[in-house]
């Protein structure tokens, strides 16, 4: 047995197969097939251990598909009283699957070659959105990193916000607030490489680490005291895997703004349904800051079931139809189309997932600028 296989075998033993993780899993809810449930995915491994002769590559390939059919929302880990680290097991299994079936996913090539998930020229990273912001920020180019530049705060934008036009407005809002606060901040431009989170999710840890080494070297050169990001996936990767100097604080933008802003001149007094991004609250432990910030802005928060939007774990890449089915179920459960209340969140991926399913959704920062009259 390899050390990894041994580790998995130990992690697996914790699972008592109670089934408590089944009905809360967004994938199970959407498919209603036990092989897609968290318990089912673990049972496969137990069974393979017991009857190795009955398992062949064809079956492993089917299993690989189920392993990638997961939003990595972590809800199964949260509910498990046996302390089974399911997402750790899934990450290892994803890694094994990609090794066994290299053609399973193409996204890895994009990131490895172009350093971003879209396979676009990485120099376009900031250009694609800064052009639209010149009116508001004529000196924005001065904020983009070049050798020798230093700053107190790094705003790590992330692939999704860099390349998808929907997020330009969120970026505008965040930058406006940073300017309002008088922050000495910097953007990495073409020197920002993908944080590696998508590669982790598809089992390519070594490749992810190469990107991170580059990012961390730039962080060191800039000498910033704080790194902020709006993307919970980037936040996780920065916190867990970039080996950043412990004296540097790594924060979600809502944590950063909540610390800096005590009150606003224009309390909004609106009611919104808050979607907790899974990665932000389960993996990064950020639950209070977005709520505190929203309360200060004057948002009356309607809480929803802490369930995934369907956009996590690369599911939109591996099975877009299923990702949308998860969202459709959520729309029905939360009466998102029946009730006249919009959704607010603070994750670019979740935001897109809601909007693509015709639910009016905004990032908290977009309300914050209004409340600050910016």
């Amino acid at each position: 047995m390899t050390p990894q296989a041994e580790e998995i075998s130990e992690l697996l033993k914790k699972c008592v197969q109670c089934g408590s993780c089944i009905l809360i899993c967004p994938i199970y809810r959407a498919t209603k097939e036990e092989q897609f449930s968290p318990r089912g995915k673990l049972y496969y491994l137990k069974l393979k251990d017991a009857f190795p002769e009955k398992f062949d590559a064809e079956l492993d390939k089917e299993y690989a598909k189920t392993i990638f059919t997961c939003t990595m929302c972590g809800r199964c880990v949260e509910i498990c009283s046996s302390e089974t680290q399911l997402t750790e097991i899934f990450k290892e299994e994803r890694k094994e699957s990609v090794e066994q079936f290299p053609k399973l996913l193409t996204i890895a090539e994009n990131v490895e070659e172009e350093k971003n998930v879209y396979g676009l020229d990485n120099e376009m990273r900031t250009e694609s959105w800064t052009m639209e912001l010149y009116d508001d920020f004529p000196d924005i180019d001065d904020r983009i990193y070049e050798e020798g530049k230093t700053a107190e705060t790094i705003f790590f934008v992330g692939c999704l916000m860099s390349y998808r036009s929907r997020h330009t407005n969120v970026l505008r809002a965040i930058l406006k607030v940073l300017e309002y606060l008088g922050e000495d901040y910097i953007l990495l431009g073409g020197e920002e490489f993908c944080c590696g989170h998508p590669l982790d999710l598809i089992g390519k840890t070594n490749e992810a680490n190469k990107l991170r080494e580059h990012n961390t070297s730039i962080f060191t050169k800039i000498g910033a005291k704080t790194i902020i990001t709006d993307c919970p996936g980037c936040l996780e990767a920065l916190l867990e895997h970039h080996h950043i100097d412990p004296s540097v604080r790594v924060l979600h933008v809502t944590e950063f703004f909540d610390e800096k802003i005590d009150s606003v001149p224009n309390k909004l007094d609106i009611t919104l349904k808050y979607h907790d991004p899974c990665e932000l609250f389960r993996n990064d432990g950020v639950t209070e800051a977005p709520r505190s910030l929203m309360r200060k802005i004057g948002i009356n928060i309607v809480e929803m079931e802490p369930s995934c939007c369907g956009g996590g774990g690369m599911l939109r890449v591996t099975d877009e139809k299923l990702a949308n089915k998860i969202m459709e179920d959520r729309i029905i459960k939360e009466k998102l189309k029946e009730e006249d209340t919009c959704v607010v969140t603070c994750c670019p991926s979740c935001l897109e997932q809601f909007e693509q399913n015709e639910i009016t959704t905004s990032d908290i920062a977009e309300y914050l600028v209004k409340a600050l009259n910016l």
Partner: protein
Amino acid sequence: MEKLQKYIIGANASIFQKIDPDSNVKVFVPENEEEIKAAIAFARENNLPITSKGGGSGMSGACTGASRKKVIISSMRMKKVLEINFDEGYAVVEAGITPDELNAEIQQRKPNWKFFVAPSSRDIATVGGILSTDGGGNDAWLAGTMADNVLEVELFDYHGNKIIVTKIDNDNKKAKITCSSKELQEKLQKNNFSIIDIAGAHGTLGYISKLKLLIKPLSEYNNQRFALAYAGNLNALGKIIYELIEANIPLTYGEAIVEAHHPEISRKTNPPMLILEFPLDFQEKVQTICKSIPDVNFNSVNKEEFEQKKEIRIKMAKRNPPEGYQLALFEGYGIAGDNLLRFEEIITKINQTLESCGFEPFIKFGHAPSVYHHGDKKVKGIIMHSREKRPEKLTSKMVFEGIVALVELCEKEGIIPKPEHKWPFSKTTQKHKRLTELTTILGKNFNPFILDSTLKELAELVL
């Protein structure tokens, strides 16, 4: 995905996990009556037995059908609430719904109403599965077990006949039978087929598709008080349970933590102890009972502290030891009557038996006081669950010998089994005889292994 589906359907919470995946010839997950009938027809045409599966949370492994060739019919897509009638106090539901799902629907309409069967596994156990194991929860003391909360059951036999069993005079043993085959209807009626037969039948009598369940307002149980009763020794714990039963206190929650060889659980709960909830009017009485027993420390607590202890208790069934892993070798020890007064001796003997078979005791806990059906009798006592530390080198021989030794001990000591866990396989029980009788009428096509397997066959399934 069909092959993968057949392999994974064996997933279940019992120690019987090593189910030959190729023994699941075909899996059906029907959504309606037509699909149920088609699944049964497939089994019939291929001369295969049927195993029904709900949430797969049962501790006896009965939802696996063992490693024999069979067709599996899962109820996990049968989750509709067909009717809720608050005036008459019932809900008609499909068999695959869980108590949590049903209560969410009920409480969306009337927040103070509830379906009152709450096993700790209520987030996954289905009402069909709960009836098939006659499950109960911490409120069984007042609300009874599943058999007491089912008004009508619809099930299908191997020939696709629909059988409706309607409870009469609120008596679990009396029913009106309606069946699409008049001949079968007459036979079943003549043999007094009733809800109590289906309760704990472990899927041997047919595929349950629909149930009419009792629902009640919560307001009956207003103005509650909470307490923790710490016992200095196991006999004192047994005595509290005994006295609470004698005084017939309407406890809305009663759970015991008997022992916990786990530093964190032990530090937070200090077992042996009882977690109690009761109406304000009974506070004095509960307090007097506890204070009259030497070595008992009675503590009134606020709701928050009560909820914290409840949370620890509900998770206990799934906890692992700080080092190593848990195993549920044997479950559902029913300890009642005078046995409660020699609780220490009983627990010591159980532990000695476990140790002599190579198993290290880990935790014991249970619904107490509680009620369960044993044959024709309703028994009042504790239903104690047990988890052992999983031996590093677990063999099927150890499991086999362990279960046999425990069954013998229970028979000798008068520990009454709740027919839920490993007990369906005990051929000496009244339930076994009754099911054998009924399956001569209904056919031996649903989960036949329950009635004819040997423990040796089952022990081979342990993983």
